[in-house]
C-alpha cells in the first residue's frame, strides 16, 4: 500500500484529504506543520507528500527545501490556496501544483497520475 503524507496547518483540510485519498486506497498520515513533516519522513518512508504553502511556523517553501534535501526523489504536490505561485512552482522543485478547491478532482487526478 502506497503511503502519502499530507502536510497542512488546517485540520479540516487534513481530514478531507485523508478521507478522499484513503477512499482511493492509499495509506495517509497527516501532520500540521513543517517540522513534523520532516520528523515524519525521517521516521518512515513515504511515496508522496501533499504540502500546503502557507503554514504557521516553518512555511511551505522552507519545508519543501528541507524535504528535498532529505529525499530528492520524493514526489511532492503543492496544494495551495494561492494561484499566483502556480507558474513558479509548476515544474520547479515540486512535481505538481494544485489550487485548493472544494472540488477535489484536481487533487485526485494528480495523485493518481503520480502514484498510478
Amino acid at each position: 500500500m502506497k503511503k502519502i503524507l499530507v502536510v497542512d496547518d488546517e485540520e479540516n483540510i487534513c481530514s478531507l484529504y485523508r478521507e478522499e485519498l484513503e477512499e482511493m486506497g492509499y495509506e495517509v498520515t497527516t501532520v500540521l506543520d513543517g517540522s513534523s513533516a520532516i520528523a515524519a519522513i525521517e521516521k518512515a518512508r513515504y511515496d508522496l507528500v501533499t504540502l500546503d504553502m502557507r503554514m504557521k511556523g516553518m512555511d511551505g517553501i522552507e519545508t519543501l527545501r528541507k524535504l528535498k534535501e532529505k529525499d530528492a526523489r520524493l514526489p511532492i504536490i503543492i496544494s495551495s490556496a494561492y494561484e499566483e505561485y502556480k507558474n513558479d512552482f509548476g515544474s520547479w522543485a515540486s512535481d505538481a501544483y494544485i489550487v485548493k478547491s472544494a472540488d477535489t478532482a484536481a487533487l485526485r487526478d494528480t495523485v493518481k497520475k503520480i502514484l498510478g
Partner: protein
Amino acid sequence: MEPVERTELSILSEIGRISTSADDLHRKLQRIIEVVMRGIGKEGASVFLLDRSGKNVILEAAAGLNQEAVGKLTFPLGKGIAGWVAQQKVPLALADPYSDPRFQYVPETGIERFKSLVAAPIMDEDRCFGVIFVLSGQTWNATSSEVTVLTTTANQISGVIRNTLLFQDIEDRLARLASIYEISMALTSTLDLNQLLSLIARNTSSSLRAQGCTIHLLDLPAGDGENRDFRPKFIDDAVGGLDNLFGGRMLSSTIGEKRPLLVADTSQDIRLQDISGRHRVSIISVPLLFHDRVTGVITLYSAEHGQSFNDDDLQFLTTIASGAAVAVENAALFEREERLASDARIRAQEFSILYDVGTAMSATLNLDRLLRIILTAATMGGTGLGFNRAILLLTNERTNILQGMMGVGPTSWDEANQAWTEVAWKHKSLMEWIQTGELFASKDTAFNAIARSIRVRLEPGDSILAQTVLDKRAFNIIDAAADPRVRKDVLEMLKVNSFATVPLVAKGRAIGAILVDNLFTNRPITDHDIRFLTMFAHQAALAIDNAVIHSNMEAMNRDIRIIHEQLAQSEKMAALGTMMAEITHEIRNPLVSIGGFTRRLARKVTDPDAKKYIDIILSEVGRLERIIHDNLEYIKNVAPKFSRTPLNSVIEEVLLVYEDELRQRGIAIERELSPDAPSLDMDPQQMKQAVVNLVVNAMEAMEKGGTLTARTGPVAGSREAIMEIGDTGPGISPESMHNLFNPYYTTKVRGTGLGLAITHRIVKAHKGNIVFRNKETGGAVFAIRLPLPRE
C-alpha cells in the same frame, strides 16, 4: 640873439617839456603844433604821420583846421602836399598852394581858411615819420630861416615820436607777450572749445587793434581729412559782413598754401580787388597747424580805412595760432570724448533698460504676461524703447505660420497723447510699470485684435515679416507702400507707412518677430533704434523660449503627475492584491472544507430534498471560488513572462480542458486552426486565461447548445496573427456593447463581470487588441490580434 633864434629856442624848450610829459603821442603832437603855430605867429598848424603800412599819411593833429578831419584825412604817399613831402623828404614853402599842381583840395577840412603854408618832413635819419605844416591866413612868403625853424622843430618832433613809438612798441610787445601768456594759460586750462575760441579771438583782436576776428575749424566728427568742411566756429559780429565777403578766399588761400596770409589793403590787393568794392580793410589769415595738417584758420580784420596789419602782427598771430592749434585739437578731442562718453551714458541707460526688462521678464514664466511685458517695454517712452506701437508674432513650427500673438499701443490719438505725456512717465519707472500692469488698455483693444489676426506663411517672398524670421534679420521699412516686399493686406491693417521688424532669435532658432511703428509721433525709426531693438529682441526671445520650455515642462509635469497617480493607484491595487491574497487564503481554506465535505455528504445522502440543498451549497461554493479566482486574476496584473509559443497550442490546451464540459452542454467544437498560424512571444499561462474567459462566455451564451468555433491564422498584409472564438448564441446585445470590457459589468446572475476585463488587459499587455462582432447568422465572435515577433 636874432628874434628867429629866440623863437626857435623857446619853441624847442617848450617841445622838450612836452616830450617828457605823460601825454600820449596824439596829445603831445597837438600841444607841439600849437606851440609851433604861436611861436611862428601863424593861425594854423598840423601833423600828418605815415600809417603802419608806410604807404599813407594820416592827419594826426591839427590846429585851426576842423578837428573832425583828424584821424580821417589821408593821402597816399606822393599825393597831395603831405604825401609829396613825406615821399620827397624835403621841406616845402608855398605862398599860393592852390595854384600848385601837387595840392589836393579836400573840402570840409577848413583848409580854405588859409592862403599860404610851409611843410617840413619829420625825419629820423633816413626814415620819414610824417609831415608838419604851418598854415597862414595871410599870404606868406616864408623866409629860409623860418623854414629852418620848422625843419629843426620837425627833427625835435621826430625824437618825440621815436621815443613814443619805442615806448609804444615795448608796451605793445609786453601786451602781446601778456596776451600770448594769457592765451597759453587758457589753452592749457580750458577744454571748452567755444570758450577757448572766444578767448583767442578777443586777445588777438585787442592785441592787434583789429576790428574783429573769425575762427574757422575743420568739421570734427567726419573721418578722413580730405573731405572735411571748414565751418565758422567763432565770428565777431562786427566783422560778419567782411567775413562773408573775404573769408572764403582768405580761407582757401591759407589752407591751400598752409601758411599765414597778409592783406594790407583789400582794395589794392590783387587777390581781393575784384570783390573789395568800396571796402578798404586789412586782413590777416593764419592757419592752425596740427601735425602739419590744417585744422582751422584764424582771420583778423582791421577797421575800414584803419591801420593796416604788418609783418609783426602776422608774426604775433602765427605765434598765437601755433599754441591755439594744439589747444583746439585738445578741446576737439575732449569734445569728441565727451560725445563718446555721452554715447556711453546712453548705452548704459539702454543697458539698464535691458536689465530692467530682463529682470521683469525672468520674473514671469507665464507666456501671456511675458509678451505683455515685452511689448510694454517696447512701447514705453522715457525709460523704455519708446515706439508707438508694437506687435509680437510667434512662429508655429508645425504649421509653418507666423502668428500674431499680441499687439500693444494706443488705439487713438487721445490715448497716445495721454500715454506719452511727461506726466505719464514722471512718477513711474519701467519696472514699476511692468509691476503695476498695463500701459495701454489691455487685451481687447482694436489694435490687439488686428495684431492677433496677422497670419503669415513662413515662405520666402511671402512678406517682410516672413523674411524677418527666415533671414533672422531686421528690416527698417521707410516707404511701405512703395516697397514690394511688404504685403499690402498687412499694410492695410496697420495703416502705417513706416515700420521696422526684428527677429526673435533664441539659441539660433527664429521663434518669432517684433514689429514696431511710430504711427502717432511719426518719429523716423533710426538705425540706432533698430540696433537697440535687436538687442532687446534677443533678450525677449530668450525669455519667451524659457517660458515656452517652462510651459512644456509644466505639461510634462502634469503627465508625470498623472503617471504618478496611476502608479499610486496601481500601488494601491498591489496592496489590495496582497490583501486579497490574504483574504483568499483565509476564505479558500474554509470553502475547501465546506465544499469538500459537502461533496462527501452528497454521496451518502439519498433524500431528494437533502440532495437539492446540497447542490445549492455546492453551487454557491463554486460561485464563491469563481469570484475569488476572477478577482485575483484581475487584481494580479503581473507583467507577462514572454516565451515563443505556437498560437494553435494555446487554443488546443484550453479546448482540451473544456472539451468534456462543452460536449455535456450539447456544444460542438469547430476547429479552424490554420497550419500557418505562427508562434508568438507571449505568456502562455496568461494567454490561455484570456482564451478561457472567451470560451467560458461562449459556452454560457449557448444555454441550449450550439457550435463553438475556434479559428487561428496569420493576417494578410499585416504583421499580426489572429485568434477567434465564435458561438451561435444570441450575440451581443446593443446595451452591452459599450460596457463589455468594463470590470464588474455583467448581465449574468452569477457573473463576476471580470472575464472580458481580464482578457482585455492580458491582450493589451501583449500589445495586441481585441474586438467583437455579431455574425449575420447569429452569435458573437471575439477576435484577438497579436503582433508577430520582431525579426
